[in-house]
């Protein structure tokens, strides 16, 4: 029973939405379902927040290894939540000067703005910029001209790497107009437009068919592993 009802909901919901796609009368049902999902996901955030508090409070109270990190997590979570929810330090909106909470929570100079500008922004930018370091180390470790395919891949990588900088233009600028297609910057565009697009399309067709087949298995209840094991 615990698994039959979710399977029924999945099957009915799924097939009705497939039908709805082909009928103009019901075409907005899909969007409505997405809104239901958003509502459930938003409520589930309480579950996630509660779980976060539970895990880190337990770790802190047990003084388990690395409990200091848990304290920082709890502080960051609590401060951001309070500052944002209570609109601390935010001036009332000029339209509603008598309502203290009518202002914008991320108003310039407010504590939330400060958290965003001087904590969130640099931290996320730092994480993203780490990609540059990892790309370099991955390239050093993984690119080896072991066989013909790898050599082709390496050659293409060099062309793209040079073509995305001024070096590409500078190195082959001397070429006559008749050979302009061989200039590195033009080759880069050609490789991206033709070879990369072709490969991507092949992978995407495979993925699309995989998604359709997987969806059908889930709707028919053939694949139930996301609800637990295959057995009842």
């Amino acid at each position, binding site marked *: 029973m615990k698994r039959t009802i979710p399977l029924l909901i999945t099957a009915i919901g799924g097939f009705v939405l497939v039908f709805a796609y082909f009928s103009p009368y019901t075409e907005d049902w899909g969007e409505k379902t997405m809104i239901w999902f958003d509502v459930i996901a938003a409520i589930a955030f309480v579950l996630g927040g509660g779980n976060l508090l539970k895990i880190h409070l337990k770790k802190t109270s047990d003084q388990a290894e690395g409990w200091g990190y848990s304290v920082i997590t709890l502080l960051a979570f609590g401060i951001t939540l309070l500052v944002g929810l209570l609109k601390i330090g935010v001036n009332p909106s000029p339209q509603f000067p008598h309502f203290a909470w009518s202002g914008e929570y991320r108003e310039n100079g407010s504590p939330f703005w400060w958290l965003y500008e001087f904590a969130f922004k640099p931290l996320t930018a730092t994480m993203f910029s780490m990609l540059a370091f990892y790309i370099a180390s991955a390239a050093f470790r993984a690119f080896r001209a072991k066989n013909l395919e790898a050599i082709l891949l390496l050659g293409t990588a060099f062309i793209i790497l040079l073509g995305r900088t001024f070096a590409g233009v500078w190195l082959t600028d001397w070429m006559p107009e008749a050979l302009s297609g061989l200039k590195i910057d033009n080759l880069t565009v050609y490789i991206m437009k033709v070879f990369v697009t072709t490969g991507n399309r092949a992978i995407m067709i495979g993925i699309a068919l995989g998604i359709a087949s997987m969806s059908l298995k889930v709707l028919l209840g*053939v694949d139930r*592993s996301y609800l637990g094991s295959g057995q009842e």
Partner: protein
Amino acid sequence: MNNGLDAPYPTLTRLTQLSFRLSRAIMCLAVLPAIACLAASVAMAQGPAPVTNLQSADHPWDGGDNADLTWEVSADDATLVESYFIYKAMMQKGPIPADLLTESERKYALVDVVPAGTTEYTVGSVPGSGYVRLKDLSDEQRALFDPNDLPDKPHKKITVELGYLFKIVAVGSDGSQSVETITAAPYSPTRQWFDAKRMYLLIITIIFGGSVVFFIQHARAGKDLKIRKIGGLAAVDEAVGRATEMGRSCMFIPGILDMNDIQTIAGMTVLSRVAKTAAEYDAKVEVPTCRSLVMTSARETVQAAYLSAGRPDAYNADFIYYVTDEQFGYVAYLQGNMVREKPAACFYMGAFYAESLILAETGNSIGAIQIAGTAMPAQLPFFVAACDYTLIGEEFFAASAYLSGEPEQLGSLKGQDVGKIIVGIGIIVGVTIATLAAWFVDTGFLTTWSEYIKGVILT
């Protein structure tokens, strides 16, 4: 009764009057050709004759937002007319007549320009129904509605029928325009139960879905089905075993999207197998998640896996926990955790974005055996470069069939192969027709087919 015209010459003699009339008649004769020329030039300036019998009708099998126009061409179609300009304007909104609509609504907007000789056209974007909010209606407009139809709150919507007028102007090569021909009454398109534009997609869906169901039934009947070895999935047991030997944990990362993404569901399938193997080997599986619902689903999956392995007591819900919805906050946590805990095996199964390389390189630096599976084409190269095994796109979705080994699941893969054959045939036929149509431009039917494939089947 004196009409005044005679007033200037009441005293003239009869002879004088006669001579005057004669001279006026001569003058008239002389002026007539000039007047005729003038009239002709005015006619030219007015432009060609207008189209006639302009009718609007519902476009069949659509979502109720198209109207079919038909007309009889201008009498000057073959000579003066170069093109017809087609316009549309809203003229009715429920009971609200045109004079109470806003000026911008009533304004005729150019829809398209079609060449001379055209006698029909389908106007798009003319929905037959829409809505207004109570607060946007004037008192005059509100009075037109049945009071029972009006909502109680100002921001609420009232569904109304929308009517349109269409007009066509014939335009000559010199830029001159005919008088407008306007449809007789506002027309409101209606919605049908089936959208014919999606007919081909429906056919493909039925063939593909039918073949998957057929092969599932086929497999249930006990027919033998084979599947090629997928290295990444075969290595799952090995990776968990290694973690057990080393006395370290396994980390499973189900991507950064929620449970409504099919990749996350596919990830749960692999998690089920990883957790079952871990339960059998008595290894620890840690599942930090980026979404609350994924945490809940992962707990169900892992608990059921431990149960089916006969180790329900070993299940610990605290190993499956929520971190944050924020992409890079999640990545920062995972990186720190990996460096501190040094898991022996890392599984990345789900939807990933820019974090893929950061995670895989960190996993590589701690010497973990790494298996990834995703359907994000942009992230596949990073996983391939940094992980030991990568399930590429469809392999990832084949995981549940491969891991379960159940005949009916394997049957679905066979059905998927039928889909590939359809796509393959479609590509070959489409490319051949398009290529031939480009080579032999004069061959009408090839061009027509090519246009039909592009304009109807592929839209």
